[in-house]
Protein backbone atom coordinates (compact mmCIF):
# COMPACT_ATOMS: atom_id res chain seq x y z
CA UNK A 1 0.00 0.00 0.00
CA UNK A 2 1.22 3.47 -0.76
CA UNK A 3 0.70 4.80 2.76
CA UNK A 4 3.08 2.12 4.05
CA UNK A 5 5.77 3.27 1.65
CA UNK A 6 5.16 6.84 2.77
CA UNK A 7 5.41 5.81 6.41
CA UNK A 8 8.76 4.12 5.93
CA UNK A 9 10.03 7.01 3.82
CA UNK A 10 9.16 9.60 6.44
CA UNK A 11 10.27 7.37 9.30
CA UNK A 12 13.74 7.05 7.73
CA UNK A 13 13.80 10.79 7.02
CA UNK A 14 12.83 11.64 10.59
CA UNK A 15 15.25 9.31 12.35
CA UNK A 16 18.07 10.12 9.95
CA UNK A 17 17.80 13.84 10.47
CA UNK A 18 17.36 13.30 14.22
CA UNK A 19 20.69 11.48 14.17
CA UNK A 20 22.12 14.40 12.22
CA UNK A 21 20.95 16.76 14.98
CA UNK A 22 22.99 14.81 17.49
CA UNK A 23 26.04 14.09 15.37
CA UNK A 24 26.60 17.39 13.59
CA UNK A 25 29.41 19.53 14.93
CA UNK A 26 27.95 22.73 13.53
CA UNK A 27 25.07 24.16 15.55
CA UNK A 28 23.37 25.71 12.52
CA UNK A 29 23.45 22.34 10.74
CA UNK A 30 21.93 20.76 13.83
CA UNK A 31 19.11 23.29 13.82
CA UNK A 32 18.39 22.71 10.14
CA UNK A 33 18.40 18.93 10.68
CA UNK A 34 15.90 19.49 13.49
CA UNK A 35 13.76 21.38 10.98
CA UNK A 36 13.80 18.44 8.56
CA UNK A 37 13.01 16.03 11.38
CA UNK A 38 10.03 18.09 12.51
CA UNK A 39 8.68 18.31 8.96
CA UNK A 40 8.97 14.52 8.78
CA UNK A 41 6.98 14.20 12.01
CA UNK A 42 4.35 16.55 10.54
CA UNK A 43 4.11 14.26 7.51
CA UNK A 44 3.59 11.29 9.85
CA UNK A 45 0.79 13.24 11.52
CA UNK A 46 -0.83 13.62 8.10
CA UNK A 47 -0.58 9.85 7.65
CA UNK A 48 -2.34 9.48 11.01
CA UNK A 49 -5.17 11.80 9.87
CA UNK A 50 -4.21 14.55 12.30
CA UNK A 51 -4.18 17.36 9.77
CA UNK A 52 -4.55 20.23 12.20
CA UNK A 53 -1.68 18.95 14.31
CA UNK A 54 0.50 18.60 11.21
CA UNK A 55 -0.18 22.20 10.24
CA UNK A 56 0.46 23.38 13.80
CA UNK A 57 3.66 21.35 13.90
CA UNK A 58 4.96 23.13 10.81
CA UNK A 59 3.85 26.56 12.04
CA UNK A 60 4.88 26.35 15.67
CA UNK A 61 7.90 24.06 15.60
CA UNK A 62 9.35 24.46 12.14
CA UNK A 63 8.36 28.09 11.90
CA UNK A 64 8.76 29.61 15.33
CA UNK A 65 10.96 27.29 17.36
CA UNK A 66 13.65 26.53 14.78
CA UNK A 67 13.73 30.18 13.70
CA UNK A 68 14.23 31.11 17.37
CA UNK A 69 17.04 28.56 17.68
CA UNK A 70 18.77 29.93 14.57
CA UNK A 71 18.36 33.44 15.88
CA UNK A 72 19.97 32.54 19.21
CA UNK A 73 22.82 30.72 17.43
CA UNK A 74 23.43 33.86 15.42
CA UNK A 75 23.23 36.03 18.54
CA UNK A 76 25.59 33.98 20.69
CA UNK A 77 28.12 33.06 18.02
CA UNK A 78 29.48 30.03 19.85
CA UNK A 79 32.34 27.93 18.70
CA UNK A 80 31.88 24.27 17.93
CA UNK A 81 35.47 23.63 18.63
CA UNK A 82 37.63 21.45 20.80
CA UNK A 83 36.07 19.26 23.40
CA UNK A 84 37.49 16.91 25.93
CA UNK A 85 37.04 13.18 25.47
CA UNK A 86 34.25 11.57 27.45
CA UNK A 87 34.87 10.63 31.03
CA UNK A 88 34.58 7.07 32.19
CA UNK A 89 31.44 7.88 34.19
CA UNK A 90 29.75 9.25 31.07
CA UNK A 91 30.55 6.13 29.08
CA UNK A 92 29.29 3.86 31.86
CA UNK A 93 26.13 5.93 32.29
CA UNK A 94 25.32 5.94 28.58
CA UNK A 95 25.96 2.21 28.25
CA UNK A 96 23.69 1.58 31.23
CA UNK A 97 20.98 3.82 29.80
CA UNK A 98 21.23 2.11 26.41
CA UNK A 99 20.96 -1.28 28.07
CA UNK A 100 17.84 -0.17 29.97
CA UNK A 101 16.20 1.21 26.84
CA UNK A 102 16.98 -1.89 24.78
CA UNK A 103 15.61 -4.03 27.62
CA UNK A 104 12.41 -2.03 27.61
CA UNK A 105 12.00 -2.39 23.86
CA UNK A 106 12.76 -6.12 24.08
CA UNK A 107 10.06 -6.73 26.67
CA UNK A 108 7.73 -4.63 24.57
CA UNK A 109 8.33 -6.76 21.47
CA UNK A 110 8.20 -10.03 23.37
CA UNK A 111 4.72 -9.18 24.55
CA UNK A 112 3.57 -9.19 20.94
CA UNK A 113 1.52 -6.55 19.22
CA UNK A 114 -0.61 -4.12 21.12
CA UNK A 115 -4.34 -4.67 21.04
CA UNK A 116 -6.30 -1.74 19.81
CA UNK A 117 -9.89 -1.43 20.88
CA UNK A 118 -11.10 -1.27 17.28
CA UNK A 119 -9.33 -3.56 14.87
CA UNK A 120 -8.06 -1.43 12.05
CA UNK A 121 -8.56 -3.89 9.24
CA UNK A 122 -12.20 -4.76 9.67
CA UNK A 123 -14.02 -1.56 10.44
CA UNK A 124 -14.58 1.49 8.36
CA UNK A 125 -11.81 4.01 8.91
CA UNK A 126 -13.22 7.08 10.59
CA UNK A 127 -10.54 9.76 10.65
CA UNK A 128 -11.18 10.98 14.14
CA UNK A 129 -8.59 13.73 14.24
CA UNK A 130 -9.38 15.08 10.83
CA UNK A 131 -12.17 17.50 11.56
CA UNK A 132 -11.77 20.85 13.22
CA UNK A 133 -15.22 20.37 14.72
CA UNK A 134 -13.95 17.51 16.87
CA UNK A 135 -11.15 19.68 18.24
CA UNK A 136 -13.56 22.49 18.98
CA UNK A 137 -15.99 20.22 20.77
CA UNK A 138 -13.24 18.75 22.92
CA UNK A 139 -11.45 22.00 23.66
CA UNK A 140 -14.56 23.91 24.67
CA UNK A 141 -16.24 21.20 26.73
CA UNK A 142 -13.96 18.62 28.34
CA UNK A 143 -10.73 20.57 28.15
CA UNK A 144 -12.00 24.06 28.86
CA UNK A 145 -10.02 24.52 32.06
CA UNK A 146 -6.72 23.29 30.52
CA UNK A 147 -7.21 25.72 27.65
CA UNK A 148 -7.47 28.60 30.10
CA UNK A 149 -4.51 27.36 32.10
CA UNK A 150 -2.41 27.07 28.95
CA UNK A 151 -3.38 30.58 27.95
CA UNK A 152 -2.27 31.82 31.34
CA UNK A 153 0.94 29.83 31.01
CA UNK A 154 1.71 31.57 27.72
CA UNK A 155 1.17 34.93 29.39
CA UNK A 156 3.49 33.98 32.23
CA UNK A 157 6.11 32.76 29.75
CA UNK A 158 5.94 36.02 27.85
CA UNK A 159 6.39 38.06 31.02
CA UNK A 160 9.18 35.76 32.17
CA UNK A 161 11.07 36.15 28.91
CA UNK A 162 10.81 39.92 29.15
CA UNK A 163 12.10 39.89 32.74
CA UNK A 164 14.94 37.50 31.86
CA UNK A 165 16.08 39.52 28.86
CA UNK A 166 16.00 42.86 30.63
CA UNK A 167 19.15 44.27 32.14
CA UNK A 168 18.71 45.41 35.71
CA UNK A 169 20.85 48.31 36.83
CA UNK A 170 20.82 47.83 40.58
CA UNK A 171 21.71 44.15 40.50
CA UNK A 172 25.36 43.58 41.30
CA UNK A 173 27.30 40.89 39.53
CA UNK A 174 27.34 37.54 41.33
CA UNK A 175 30.16 35.79 39.58
Amino acid at each position, binding site marked *: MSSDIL*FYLFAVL*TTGSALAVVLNKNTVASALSLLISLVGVAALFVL*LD*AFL*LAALMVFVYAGAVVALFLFIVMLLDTYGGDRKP*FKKATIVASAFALALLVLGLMTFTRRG*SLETSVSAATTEVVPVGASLRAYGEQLFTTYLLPVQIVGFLLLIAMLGVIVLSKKFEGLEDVK
Partner: protein
Amino acid sequence: MTVGINEYLYLSAALFVIGFFGVLLRKNTLVIYMCLELMLVASTVALVAFSHFNRTMDGNVFVFFILTVAAAEVAVGLAIIVALFRRRQTIQVEELNALKN
Protein backbone atom coordinates in the same frame (compact mmCIF):
# COMPACT_ATOMS: atom_id res chain seq x y z
CA MET B 1 -2.81 -2.14 6.30
CA THR B 2 0.51 -3.46 7.51
CA VAL B 3 1.78 -0.38 9.30
CA GLY B 4 0.08 -0.64 12.65
CA ILE B 5 0.51 1.02 15.98
CA ASN B 6 3.67 -0.96 16.70
CA GLU B 7 5.65 0.65 13.90
CA TYR B 8 4.72 4.09 15.09
CA LEU B 9 5.70 3.22 18.65
CA TYR B 10 9.05 1.87 17.49
CA LEU B 11 9.65 5.08 15.60
CA SER B 12 8.68 7.08 18.66
CA ALA B 13 11.02 5.05 20.87
CA ALA B 14 13.86 5.46 18.37
CA LEU B 15 13.39 9.22 18.22
CA PHE B 16 13.26 9.39 22.00
CA VAL B 17 16.47 7.38 22.34
CA ILE B 18 18.26 9.59 19.82
CA GLY B 19 17.18 12.70 21.70
CA PHE B 20 18.15 11.14 25.01
CA PHE B 21 21.65 10.34 23.88
CA GLY B 22 21.95 13.80 22.40
CA VAL B 23 21.19 15.25 25.82
CA LEU B 24 23.63 12.87 27.46
CA LEU B 25 26.55 13.27 25.08
CA ARG B 26 26.55 16.75 23.63
CA LYS B 27 28.33 19.66 25.29
CA ASN B 28 26.66 22.66 23.68
CA THR B 29 23.63 23.87 25.63
CA LEU B 30 21.75 24.85 22.47
CA VAL B 31 22.15 21.37 20.96
CA ILE B 32 21.08 19.81 24.27
CA TYR B 33 17.98 21.95 24.10
CA MET B 34 17.27 20.83 20.52
CA CYS B 35 17.54 17.21 21.66
CA LEU B 36 15.06 17.93 24.46
CA GLU B 37 12.64 19.18 21.82
CA LEU B 38 13.27 15.99 19.86
CA MET B 39 12.27 13.89 22.88
CA LEU B 40 9.10 15.93 23.27
CA VAL B 41 8.22 15.42 19.61
CA ALA B 42 8.86 11.67 19.94
CA SER B 43 6.27 11.49 22.70
CA THR B 44 3.76 13.37 20.57
CA VAL B 45 4.17 10.80 17.77
CA ALA B 46 3.22 8.05 20.21
CA LEU B 47 0.22 10.02 21.48
CA VAL B 48 -1.14 10.72 18.00
CA ALA B 49 -0.64 7.08 17.01
CA PHE B 50 -2.58 5.89 20.07
CA SER B 51 -5.31 8.37 19.33
CA HIS B 52 -5.58 7.29 15.71
CA PHE B 53 -5.61 3.56 16.32
CA ASN B 54 -8.06 3.73 19.23
CA ARG B 55 -10.43 6.14 17.46
CA THR B 56 -10.41 8.63 20.30
CA MET B 57 -9.79 12.34 20.29
CA ASP B 58 -7.94 12.72 23.58
CA GLY B 59 -4.42 12.05 22.33
CA ASN B 60 -4.78 14.67 19.63
CA VAL B 61 -6.00 17.27 22.11
CA PHE B 62 -3.16 16.37 24.43
CA VAL B 63 -0.64 16.92 21.62
CA PHE B 64 -2.29 20.28 21.04
CA PHE B 65 -1.48 21.25 24.63
CA ILE B 66 2.02 19.82 24.36
CA LEU B 67 2.67 22.06 21.34
CA THR B 68 1.55 25.11 23.29
CA VAL B 69 3.64 24.27 26.34
CA ALA B 70 6.66 23.50 24.15
CA ALA B 71 6.43 26.91 22.50
CA ALA B 72 6.39 28.63 25.90
CA GLU B 73 9.18 26.40 27.14
CA VAL B 74 11.45 27.15 24.21
CA ALA B 75 10.97 30.89 24.64
CA VAL B 76 11.83 30.79 28.34
CA GLY B 77 14.71 28.33 27.89
CA LEU B 78 16.37 30.33 25.17
CA ALA B 79 15.99 33.49 27.22
CA ILE B 80 17.74 31.70 30.09
CA ILE B 81 20.54 30.60 27.74
CA VAL B 82 20.99 34.16 26.51
CA ALA B 83 21.08 35.46 30.09
CA LEU B 84 23.61 32.75 30.96
CA PHE B 85 25.81 33.69 28.01
CA ARG B 86 25.63 37.32 28.96
CA ARG B 87 26.89 36.56 32.45
CA ARG B 88 29.39 33.75 31.86
CA GLN B 89 30.41 34.27 28.21
CA THR B 90 30.02 30.56 27.47
CA ILE B 91 27.28 28.01 26.94
CA GLN B 92 29.48 24.89 26.96
CA VAL B 93 28.28 22.68 29.80
CA GLU B 94 31.76 21.63 30.89
CA GLU B 95 32.63 25.25 31.64
CA LEU B 96 29.42 25.88 33.56
CA ASN B 97 30.56 24.11 36.72
CA ALA B 98 29.83 26.70 39.40
CA LEU B 99 27.87 24.14 41.45
CA LYS B 100 30.53 21.44 41.20
CA ASN B 101 32.07 20.31 44.53
